[in-house]
């Protein structure tokens, strides 16, 4: 209803995490979900977060999105507090689950953020249709979520996050539910989009090869208390193609990530 809200693209994309900590009060005491995490993400970077279940990846993403308030440390998103960044619609968030609105068809699900942000009517439709084409679902624009498979639903939610063209993308295991071929296809699309639009992407995944393939840097985390175990720079040429997977540099990076992951991954504590 208000029209004074800033359009997302007007802000930068850098994220700065300093000594960040997050403690949840729980029944049996406290859960330290994140401890003393520091990380500088430059505008236009593609960062992957990888780590065992329950290590705080989602927590870190939610902190950046101002869906949680840190219990210690400092966090700046696009040069502002997370709250300001959120209020400026600086980021798009893709949740672990699709979280579609059952009563809206695919097209109008993708148009939801555009409605909330008061985009002009014609633009909404045009943008939403473009995004659906990107994720290969233009034929399903009039379908309702229940008529789609889990993987298709997740693709809709990606289209929705991209629709309002935010400078930052926060993506929580967006491709977890997809089969390998579809996944590879979407990986390529995501990379192209990232290159073309110079967005900052923070991407959570369980797949080492996916992390390495996509990222400029891979952040490896350890479980309870969630900590950043190390950061692996990925020195692969841009733009990346499928063949990059077979290069020694790819292997090297993947091996480094694997080793960091192994460190401190006691099998028992894994969830």
């Amino acid at each position: 209803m208000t029209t004074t809200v800033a359009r997302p693209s007007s802000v930068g994309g850098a994220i700065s995490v300093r000594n960040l900590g997050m403690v949840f009060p729980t029944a049996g005491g406290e859960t330290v979900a994140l401890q003393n995490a520091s990380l500088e993400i430059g505008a236009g970077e593609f960062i992957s977060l990888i780590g065992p279940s329950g290590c705080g990846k989602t927590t870190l993403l939610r902190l950046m999105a101002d869906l949680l308030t840190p219990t210690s440390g400092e966090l700046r998103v696009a040069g502002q507090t997370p709250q300001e960044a959120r209020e400026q619609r600086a980021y798009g968030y893709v949740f672990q689950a699709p979280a579609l609105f059952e009563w809206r068809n695919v097209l109008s699900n993708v148009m939801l953020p555009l409605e909330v942000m008061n985009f002009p009517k014609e633009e909404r439709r045009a943008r939403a249709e473009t995004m659906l084409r990107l994720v290969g679902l233009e034929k399903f624009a009039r379908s309702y979520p229940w008529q789609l498979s889990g993987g298709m639903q997740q693709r809709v939610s990606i289209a929705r996050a991209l629709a309002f063209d935010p400078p930052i993308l926060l993506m929580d295991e967006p491709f977890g539910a997809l089969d390998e071929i579809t996944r590879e296809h979407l990986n390529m699309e995501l990379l192209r989009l990232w290159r073309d639009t110079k967005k900052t992407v923070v991407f959570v995944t369980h797949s080492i090869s996916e992390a390495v393939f996509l990222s400029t840097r891979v952040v490896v985390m350890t479980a309870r208390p969630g900590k950043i175990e190390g950061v692996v720079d990925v020195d692969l040429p841009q733009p990346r193609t499928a063949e990059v997977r077979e290069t020694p540099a790819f292997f090297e990076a993947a091996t480094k990530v694997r080793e960091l992951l192994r460190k401190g991954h006691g099998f028992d504590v894994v969830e």
Partner: protein
Amino acid sequence: MASRAAEVKLRRGGVAPLALGWGLVVASFVLLGVAISQVLNVQFGTTPSNQGTVLLLTALGVVLGVFGIGRIADRTRGLTPALVTFVFSLLAVEALLRAYAVPPGLIPTPSRVWTALVNGLEVLARDAAVTFVQEALVGYLGGTIVAILVALAVVRFRFLERGLLPYAAVASSVPIVALAPVIVKAFGLEPVSKAIIVGITVFFPIVVNVVRGLQSANPHHLDLMRTYAVPPARTFLLVRVPSALPFLFTALKIATTLAMIGAIVGEFFGATGEGLGFRIQIEAGRFNLDVVWAAIVVASVLGIAFYGLVSWLESRFTFRFGSAK
């Protein structure tokens, strides 16, 4: 998971507001008490000379009470806020009825109802025994047992599911009160006829729910049993029965209300001189509304206790089956 943080932020703190709330409530009760004391002996049909004062006191008491209860309720869990609200409402109603000198043949004051309740306790207890035990409870148990047996048959035989269940679903949208006079006619004035009304009333929702519950069994569980080559009867006990329990209890809770209403309505169409419905009917005809309300109070308390009992059973059983939320 998300809103938890938001909730933490929203929790307003401090003991002082709570104490203030109680202060307001006490002040309100005092004001209402004073208001009532001003009109203790009022002739109905006349306007009390001090009506203005009493109304002012009452209004003030109501305002303070609403604010006080609001504060208490925001910060106190459990039944306390509800109980305070109850006492508050009684006092306010008493004051208003007395201030306007409303005749007891129209609306009796809470204190009159209380007196009638105390004076007629023995009779009301017997009435309650008839209505609650011989009619509502007997009908409830009978209806439930038959309904469960039918539900088992329906699940066992696909033919019945297709041929019978649609009727049962439709029948649960039939106003059963319409049955009451017919059944009283067919089965006589004794409690039995009312128990039958109750039984029929509770039957349909229970059948429908239990069937739904038995069919809600996770198909993967059923497949799993099949991979183990478990005989059907055992599968039934291991898989279908546990998944039907929550549905059964939901229906049993709905049925408590239906049972009380069914029994009382039934008595309106003939009774043997006992029962809460009989009492209500006979005394309403004489405008002894204090007795009528006393009977309603008894019926309501029994109804609530009945509901509470079933809820308690539900929590016990579902705890045993380790459900989370």
